[in-house]
């Protein structure tokens, strides 16, 4: 079985290298054809535009009869990608995988997943809540992540001294909301993690009583 698997993967890597139009790259890690790094640019007209996204690819023993394993190496703020681990929730990486799909076509599907999130089947529930409750704030956060982690150019942004985005911005929170609780003496990282979990953003803040936040902060 491994001969056919090796032949197929090598051909896929070759074909992808030949194709200059797709902007998808697939490289071997340490000359190992079964552990690869795929990469593609963030799609235009999305918060990911200008970023460059790397994906860890593991070819399973039974490939192509079993799906490739893929996860983002580059941090991505997206409902279907775990912001902590890079794990991806996409049907073709699971039970809709078909042996006619290739590494390139799968990476292209990841690229389109960045264009069209599926918040109803999230990988990262907190990010999905953010996406569903306040799109503008979600887009801003996703853009901050693209600049901070995916080398997206920070043009048209107010220059922020020292770094591209603040920790509050990376969590999609307003500085005023964070400050309201840090001023009470709570540690900043704790405040950010609690507000993120409660989706303390935009209009949603009206639904969350201050006592709920305090209760979480005292845990």
């Amino acid at each position, binding site marked *: 079985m491994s001969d056919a698997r090796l032949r197929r993967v090598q*051909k896929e890597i070759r074909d992808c290298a030949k194709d200059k139009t797709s902007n998808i790259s697939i490289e071997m890690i340490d000359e190992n054809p079964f552990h690869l790094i795929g990469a593609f640019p963030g799609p235009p007209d999305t918060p990911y535009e200008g970023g460059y996204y790397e994906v860890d690819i593991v070819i399973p023993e039974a490939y192509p*009869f079993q799906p490739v394993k893929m*996860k983002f190496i580059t941090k991505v703020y997206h409902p279907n990608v775990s912001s902590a681990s890079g794990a991806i*929730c996409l049907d073709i990486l*699971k039970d809709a*995988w*078909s042996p006619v799909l*290739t590494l390139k076509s799968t990476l292209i599907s990841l690229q389109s997943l960045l264009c069209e999130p599926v918040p109803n089947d999230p*990988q990262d529930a907190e990010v999905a809540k953010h996406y569903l409750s306040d799109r503008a704030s979600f887009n801003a956060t996703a853009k901050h992540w693209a600049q901070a982690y995916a080398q997206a150019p920070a043009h048209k942004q107010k220059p922020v001294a020292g770094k591209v985005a603040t920790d509050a911005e990376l969590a999609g929170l307003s500085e005023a909301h964070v400050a309201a609780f840090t001023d009470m003496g709570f540690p900043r990282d704790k405040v950010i993690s609690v507000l993120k979990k409660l989706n303390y953003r935009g209009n949603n803040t009206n639904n969350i009583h201050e006592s709920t936040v305090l209760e979480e902060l005292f845990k």
Partner: protein
Amino acid sequence: MTRDLTDTTSHPDPPPPKKARTELSEMPADSVPSDSTGGVVPHDVPPESSEVRPEVPPAGNAETSGTAPRVIDENTDMTTLTDQEIMRLMEGMGHAQDAMTKPLISTPVPLKVIRDEYERGSPQVLKKLDWLQEKGWDQVWRARGDGDCFYRSFTLAYLLRILHDPEPALAANLAFDAIQRALPAMQQAGFDPDLYEEFLAPLLELVRSFAPENEEAEIPTEWALVQSLQDPERSNCIVVALRLITSAYIRSHVDLFSPFLLSPTTFLPLTTDDFCRQEVEPCGKEADHAQIMALAEALEIGIRIAYLDRSEVGSGDVINWVEFGKATAEEDKPLTLLYRPGHYDVLAKDVLPTNIPDV
């Protein structure tokens, strides 16, 4: 039996209920659909299905409760299941794991082996099994219960049909041509010829082996066929090739199929592309009428399926034969399969191949 390919550890949420429902609905009440022993079944061993057949508690089971659990089958409304019932069904699923260690396809077992599994089951099913036996359908070539069983059964029946033809070389050439005629649709469907030709190669090689260029060469025996199809790489390639032929046929006959393309879990209509992408092309997705009809039409072969369900049986043909494709009359030698809820096997009569001279 949906093959579990997902890396469940990477998903923080519990699997969506869709999947659980699929497996529940595929769980027949009166039989473990998979090869329970992969061929030779010792008759004194109680059927494994007793776990999912709660009306017959195993001997010595300290079940003291006076109320017998109800029978859960394909007609049971899933929303009425109690937690205990769901748990019992889930335990039964443990056997699905076994399925993955059984041969992909096995040499034939007598129909009696299947009958023994139903010994204490539905009288309608037993009546149908007895009828099949009476009519000479006394052999079953079992396929592994991994969701690809229709395609694997199809392959074996397709090749046995060539082997048992009075003129195997002619039958092989006709089959080879029929497969070639199905190829343009594959390319139209957008499949990469480099990819599908690789999947198709093992099937074409087996078909061609019945019409060897060197006339001295021996054609495969039943045993050699089964061995070839037990090889996972070749068998899986053929499954994929047949899935792509099926998908290409559905995609090129949208008007014919679109009214019947429903999600097997939600029963909601799917677009042709979604149906093919989700229910035809991935391995491990069971074939239903649309897929079977498409494959029969694409390869110009008749298929008839004996439905071993619990429906009431009338006079005349006791079995419900469901037929696909144009040539399903006895003289056309259609592929004959046995269907039990959620599973397909090959059904055969134990006849001497006509191309072997009497000794």
